[in-house]
């Protein structure tokens, strides 16, 4: 084996600490897009060490104040890209207005990784096994993106395209995620099945329902670790809308997963097992959602 294959040290790169969004975008362009933004570095540093990536330039975005902070803006909670996973756990505005994200946060990695990893970094990476990207789908969130031509907002439904592929173009920066404020007539549930706490889930799921009494008026259910992208299960959603959560309905939603999910082949968790686990998890979560009524 040559050294490249065994190396656990990153290839040489230049480092630039950006103070503003414009500086970060400009540096990326001037490096001919042979650059990477670094936020928490909790996914990027291992990728550089393994030389899965070897950019010429690393642009540190963690000192850009515009990317920081959580605040209400109209009907939305604006979560700055640099909000760390540990702040998702501790920030009162998240607990009040985006409780599904608060529920997911303890499942994201380990405490020390949560101290550095950022919400924006997790969404940008779009790891199909990650909790937060999938929850942006369940929440009908919008991702704010800054690029050379200005700023735009993309719905989570349109953001995740394929394995580690998103609507982000090279050199574009996620500045914030907008989450519709949690309302009194809404309910949520989250859980995942993992072999060990802190490990990536074998299957995970989160959901947000809008209800009138026991009737479900609308529901968005999103799975992770089931394919190339976080995945909404629209067939299962459709079986639930307009009715209460009785055993029959839950069974129908579980059955619908067969058409919604097509887990890939994998040695660790065969597709049939993953589908089974998804059904079990969906049943549990809908049961909890019903109890909360």
């Amino acid at each position: 084996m040559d050294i490249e294959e065994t190396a656990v040290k990153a290839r040489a790169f230049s480092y630039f600490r950006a103070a503003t969004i414009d500086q970060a975008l400009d540096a990326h362009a001037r490096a001919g897009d042979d650059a990477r933004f670094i936020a928490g570095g909790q996914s990027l540093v291992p990728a550089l060490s393994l030389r899965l990536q070897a950019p010429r330039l690393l642009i540190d975005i963690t000192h850009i104040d515009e990317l920081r902070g959580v605040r209400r803006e109209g009907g939305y909670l604006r979560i700055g890209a640099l909000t760390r996973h540990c702040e998702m756990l501790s920030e009162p505005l998240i607990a009040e207005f985006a409780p599904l994200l608060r529920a997911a946060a303890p499942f994201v990695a380990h405490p020390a990784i949560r101290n550095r990893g950022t919400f924006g970094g997790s969404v940008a990476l779009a790891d199909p096994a990650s909790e937060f990207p999938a929850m942006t789908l369940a929440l009908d969130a919008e991702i704010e993106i800054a690029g050379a031509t200005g700023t735009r907002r993309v719905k989570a439904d349109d953001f995740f395209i394929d394995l580690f592929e998103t609507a982000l173009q090279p050199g574009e920066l996620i500045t914030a995620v907008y989450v519709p404020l949690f309302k009194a007539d809404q309910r949520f549930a989250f859980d995942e099945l993992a072999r060990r706490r802190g490990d990536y889930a074998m299957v995970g799921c989160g959901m947000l329902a809008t209800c009138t009494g026991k009737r479900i008026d609308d529901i968005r259910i999103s799975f992770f670790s089931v394919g190339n992208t976080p995945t909404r299960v629209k067939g299962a959603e459709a079986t639930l809308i307009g009715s209460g959560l009785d055993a029959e309905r839950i069974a129908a939603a579980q059955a619908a997963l067969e058409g919604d999910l097509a887990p890939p082949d994998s040695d660790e968790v065969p597709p049939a097992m993953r589908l089974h686990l998804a059904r079990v998890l969906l049943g549990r979560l809908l049961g909890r959602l019903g109890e909360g009524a």
Partner: protein
Amino acid sequence: MSGFDETKLDDADETVRVRFVVNGRKVACEVAPRETLVDCLRNTLELTGTHAGCEMGACGACLVQLDGRAVHSCLMFAVQADGANISTIEGLTESGVIADLQAEFHRRNALQCGFCTPGMLVNAQELLSQVAQPSRGEIRDALSGNYCRCTGYEAIVDAIDAVAKARSEGGGTT
């Protein structure tokens, strides 16, 4: 506003000067941008109490405190820490803030080879600074990112549990 200097692209391995406070002392050193904080601490500053195991965020041997919070020193480059306040196991030992944890680890044989111990202690200190009286389940959960190949964890959980109780009873040290 200081923008990006394009000439930087041509000297990728050129060292840059970083300044931080390590264990209460101001330090300036020359690092290549690709040098991780753990390598800088161990090789340049000769603070070898911080261990490098997997160098991928999986084992927890490299934990240090950065601005008061536990982080993996293998998952950041030293340049990123410019301006930060870092405490390693050496500093935490000198200051005495974890003396009770160290005594309890010792008393309960919560270490054998000791490779994982600095990371375990940094993590235990983090947990106890966040949660006053963690349950055993919470302690185990907090240690989920710290591997120990020797002890089987039980004695480590015991030690942290004992210190948590002692500290919340106001005793401080055991």
